[in-house]
């Protein structure tokens, strides 16, 4: 166990190093330079370009730029090229904005998809199963932005509440119940949208896991010896079907930083996804690279956590 942990940590650090190299190369070898953002702007004199290049080490060769960048990242000194603010501070602020979306979305996904999946596994082939199958395909296939507009039209027309942004613009300083309701209304649509795909996929997965476990011998044995159906399903089958999902807790970690670019830009939600999008538009390389690096760390940490959880939960696995 310890040797497995040690080996996988070393492996992940090597992977992380290569990810950092590859992402750095992708950004810096792409055509176009950040120092030539607007050559037609009269205020943008060659001297300024030169100063800019010197300030951000753009005149140095690539490998020195690489070392500078990651040295700054680890000492927390990376600054955005756009407004000279600390990149980590900027990301942290946006992260706090995205966090409620992520939490509500995750709670919705995990609380809804299990009952749906289990029920359609129990009544497989029935009306409920077939309609839930069809709806989950529908939700997987619907483009997020289109679904967002359908929901916006529906909510705005039938409830007459504003939904764009984190709170109603110019709401001032209302009493706290009104403030709370306002925040809830604004939070609801984006997080529902973020959760739909997850619900559809996860409930299908729960269903197939349940079906798989139900065909196992120990379930048949339990039925044969006369255990009540409820107990067979929820004690013998469900517990075993849940095993792979424990590990999926590790895999939701990367979702923390992802934030949906499309949904956040439709709802003008000042979260991570939108910040990344704006950074791409402005060619703000430090922000892009930092977001990329953090998300790679989270992906690796997520897979690591899920491996370890799997070992803890399932005694049959020995690595």
């Amino acid at each position, binding site marked *: 166990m310890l040797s497995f942990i040690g080996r996988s940590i070393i492996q992940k650090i090597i992977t992380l190093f290569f990810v950092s190299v590859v992402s750095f190369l992708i950004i810096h070898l792409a055509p176009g330079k950040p120092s030539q953002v607007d050559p037609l702007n009269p205020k943008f004199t060659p001297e300024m370009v030169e100063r800019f290049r010197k300030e951000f080490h753009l005149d140095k060769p690539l490998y020195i730029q690489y070392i500078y960048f990651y040295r700054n990242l680890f000492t927390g000194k990376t600054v955005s090229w756009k407004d000279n603010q600390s990149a980590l501070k900027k990301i942290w602020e946006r992260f706090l904005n995205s966090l409620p979306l992520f939490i509500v979305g995750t709670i919705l996904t995990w609380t809804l998809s299990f009952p749906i999946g289990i029920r359609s596994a129990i009544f497989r082939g029935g009306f409920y199963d077939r309609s839930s199958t069809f709806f989950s395909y*529908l939700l997987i296939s619907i*483009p997020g932005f289109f679904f967002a*507009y359908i929901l916006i*039209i529906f909510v705005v027309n039938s409830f007459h509440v504003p939904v764009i942004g984190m709170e109603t613009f110019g709401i001032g300083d209302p009493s706290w119940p009104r403030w709370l309701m306002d925040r809830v209304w604004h939070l609801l649509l984006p997080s529902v949208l973020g959760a739909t795909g997850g619900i559809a996929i996860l409930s299908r997965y729960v269903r197939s896991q349940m079906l798989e476990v139900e065909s196992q011998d120990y379930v048949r044995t339990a039925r044969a010896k006369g255990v009540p159906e409820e107990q067979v399903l929820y004690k013998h089958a469900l517990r075993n079907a849940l095993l792979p999902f424990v590990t999926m807790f590790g895999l939701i970690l990367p979702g923390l930083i992802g934030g949906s*670019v499309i949904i956040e830009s439709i709802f003008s939600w000042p979260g991570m996804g939108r910040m990344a999008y704006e950074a791409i538009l402005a060619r703000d390389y430090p922000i892009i690279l930092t977001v990329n690096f953090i*998300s790679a760390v989270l*992906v690796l940490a997520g897979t690591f956590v899920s491996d370890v959880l799997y070992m803890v939960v399932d005694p049959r696995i020995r690595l």
Partner: protein
Amino acid sequence: MMKIMKSSQIHSETPIEASSAVPRRSRLQEFWRLLKGNSLAFVGLIIFVLFFCAALAGLILTSGTKPVFDPAMVRLQEKLLPPLSSPNLETLRPEEIPKLGVYLFGTDDLGRDVFARMLQGAWVSLTVGFVAVGIAVLIGIFMGGISGYFGQGHIRVDQILAAFVLLLGGGLLAVGAIFSGSALLLIGSAYIFFSRWLKKGLGKQPPPKWMKVFFAGVISIDTLIMRLVDIMLCFPSFFLILTVVALLPASMYNIMIVIGLTSWMGATRFVRAEFLSLREQDFVTAARALGVSNWRIIFRHMIPNAIAPVLVSATIGIATAILTEAGLSFLGFGVPPPHATWGNILSDGKRFIFDAPWLTFVPGFAILLVVLSFNLFGEGLRDILNPKLKERY
């Protein structure tokens, strides 16, 4: 030699077996029977065929100098007309009148016929989906095949050094240092010839001691490729695609290539897993015993048996690629403007969402239907290709 292939073909080609072992139907008939039994997949296939015809018709009818449906024809006096409204014939020049006599899907804010634009966009969605997934599947089969079949071989230090020298030379050439770059390239390629000659010359003799360091195996090919997959999986995919597409000049081909280059990991893993299990099976051992060459074993015997999960994931991958392209177009990074795509029709229409909802709903439902059809067909394919279902009559 040809007879040693797959179990089903052994049955169909050996006459000595009792007739009960011969399948009553051919593979294709069996496939068709299972497909008709799976109503969702069948509906998916029908929608896909319709979409394919529409895209092909769209390509023919909307391109050229005098297209039948001109997607770029601006009629400002006819803007934002709802679907099925007829044009005001008095204000239009004869060539501006839509060929169908009505605006089937209405007009947008510049008075362009949404039906013509949808037709033009269909071809974009279709090609982006197929080409991107084609690239991904090709890379996946190549990488997965190598790592599954030759995976146990080790890469030697000298090979790594040669590859490094070649890469460095190419990089220097690309940067502009022509002399040193071409010198390195020459050294690298000379070494490759040298090592081939060495292999032939030395034969079975062990290499001299001082060269042992260079011939030490460092890392197995399988590990190398799987680590590469891990590295690629670390990138958040939509964010990576968005970054690359935003940095590259806007064009349809860049989008296809970028989507393809960032989505081959699934196919690689499937092919590798299949190859690892197939390599140990008797028909491969028999083929190898007969002296069939490695490449013939791979292409003739193993890939046909390993292709089923790849096909399923490719079908679903097409759906994902179409969604990704629509999302990129929606954000304004798609195919450049005069060309219509479903994503940018929707994105242009979002400003008029309450006045002209058809600009949102027509492309939205079109994307939904096509993506749904690919997903349903892919899931159906998974069931159909499942060998457990096959022999049940």
